């Protein structure tokens, strides 16, 4: 069975956040694209070191918020003045002032849904299986270990070159990971 398994990529462990940051900068400088750093907490400056563009989460949040705003206003206008007109204290059936609290709450609620589920979608969560699960030492990534991996899908991927670069940057336990 083992020979049928596809290679996923190669991974190395680094001593600390500083070494990992340095390594990420080196991989970016050499033009690698499909590499990823793995750490127990977000590392300051890593996004720039890897050359990542900004997160798209805020746009999803905005869409959620605008949806909430629209639903809030429409719901109160339609139910109170169209579907079930209810005269309260002789006031007009709909004014925006009384609709503010519910509209506000619904905007916040749907923004929060957009933020959380948008983040899940962008991160492709839930991901029950990942090739790195086949590399037992990787479990320490949620404790105190720092890793950098390069996938075979990278256009300039070359096993020996990556291994050499890992060794040069102080990468330890350099391992080829299979899918």
């Amino acid at each position, binding site marked *: 069975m083992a020979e049928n398994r596809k290679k996923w990529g190669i991974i190395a462990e680094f001593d*600390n*956040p*500083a*070494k990992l*940051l340095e390594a*990420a900068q080196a991989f970016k400088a050499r033009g690698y694209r499909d590499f*990823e*750093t*793995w*750490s*127990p*907490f*977000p*590392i*300051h*400056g*890593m*996004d720039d070191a890897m050359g*990542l563009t*900004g*997160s*798209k*989460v*805020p746009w999803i*949040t905005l869409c959620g918020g605008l949806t909430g705003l629209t639903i809030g206003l429409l719901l*109160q206008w339609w*139910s*109170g003045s169209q579907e*079930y007109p*209810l005269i*309260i204290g002789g*006031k007009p059936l709909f004014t925006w002032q*009384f*609709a503010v*609290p*519910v509209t*506000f*709450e*619904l905007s*916040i*609620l749907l*923004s*929060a*849904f957009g*933020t*959380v589920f948008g*983040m*899940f979608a962008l*991160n492709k*969560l*839930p*991901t*029950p299986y*990942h090739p790195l699960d086949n590399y037992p030492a*990787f*479990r320490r*990534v*949620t*404790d*105190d270990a720092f890793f950098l991996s390069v996938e075979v899908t990278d256009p300039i991927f070359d096993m020996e070159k990556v291994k050499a670069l890992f060794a040069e940057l102080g990468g330890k336990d350099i391992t080829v990971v299979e899918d």
Partner: protein
Amino acid sequence: MSDSDKIYQEDSIFPPPLVGGKHDFHSVTEAVCGIVESKLSLKWLIVIAFSSSVLLALFVAIGWLIWEGTGVWGINNPVGWGWAIVNFVFWVGIGHAGTLISAILFLFRQKWRTAINRFAEAMTIFAVMCALIFPGIHVGRIWAAYWMFPIPNQMGMWPNFRSPLLWDVFAVSTYFTVSLLFWYVGLIPDLATLRDRAKNKFAFWAYGMLALGWRGANRHWQNYERAYLLLAGLATPLVLSVHTIVSFDFAVSVIPGWHTTIFPPYFVAGAIFSGFAMVLTLAIPCRKWFHLEDFITVRHIENMNKIILVTGTMVGYAYAMEFFIAWYSASPYETYTFINRAFGPYDWAYWTMVSCNVITPQFFWSKKLRTNLTVTFILSIFVNIGMWFERFVITMSLHRDYIPSSWDYYRPTMWDALTFLGSFGLFFTLFTLFLKFLPAVAISEVKGVMPEADPHWEGYHHDDHHAEAHHG
């Protein structure tokens, strides 16, 4: 007193470290996960047995209420809102400190919050659950409770969106949902830690499912951190709006003593005041019990005491201002309500409130007292009591309204008391379960504020970056 507590007491111009003792990343994981992974202790079993028995009392009290009707409570004609609304506002208020710690302090980059935010957010969620029970069961005909929501129904009926009580339904349910999401998002990396350390299949599957396959990729952290920041930004106006809307329940009515514009800010300050007191009431015993002194340090306790001092003083100011406006309004009803609060049949409640809420926090001007854990714990209980009485005093404005012939005196029954007591059972049962089965301290966040987490930490650059490190 632990070593890190002692270090704190020594005078230094530098702020003490956020994590006390000698810790590296791995020992932080061990310290927090150790609580979850250890065998059930006898102490824990006794606590859960006790709190779940009290929870049983809540089920009995609610069951009897639904069977018999709201007549089992002490509510009467002028006082239609008895302990149920008092308890509702009390519990919602307690929840607010959790959101303040998790969201507002996050936006202000107060890194000390990382040790207590998990804890405080859990408190928020459980407190809001307790709060939601009271208006839910106070409707009397509980099978009609769904009328509060805009659900299409066979009667073709829709809620009245002009009612502050309906705004409250939206505010509190949104608050609960957003708090839960915020808490869960914060938990994901730590659930992954528990999954990766799991010794048995069940723990691996349970934490693995909840962790959603989090593996700490930087591309994930990027979206995660942005989402967390946005949630903090959303939760901040939300928490202010929630207690504002809770205060509208009172302020939008035409009852003397309620119909005031000071209510929203006064309620929000009171909520934060009571919430921080509850955080302290819970944190002081827990840090000792679970040996978390290195994470929840005296610095954290002192900072919370400072917030209690500020918000307590604001609350005291609001009490004084209410009296001033009552006099200045020249409305005889308004003036009478306040004189009646302080010197009428409920004067005992009024002066309990004033002593607990206005006098108690003033002790925290003294550094000696606000860094003393025993004093802090005792004073926090007084604040909890005082803030419950504040809501009681406000609600009891109902007992003497415009027409003296309708005046009455409200007395709670045994069922009121049992329901309130039972809500503590629910709160402590959930909290005890949380302490045992989920990481009580945000592991990944605490690691993130340790000096070693910064790639530019001087320890990593002994030779070349000395000058730079001093600027940092």
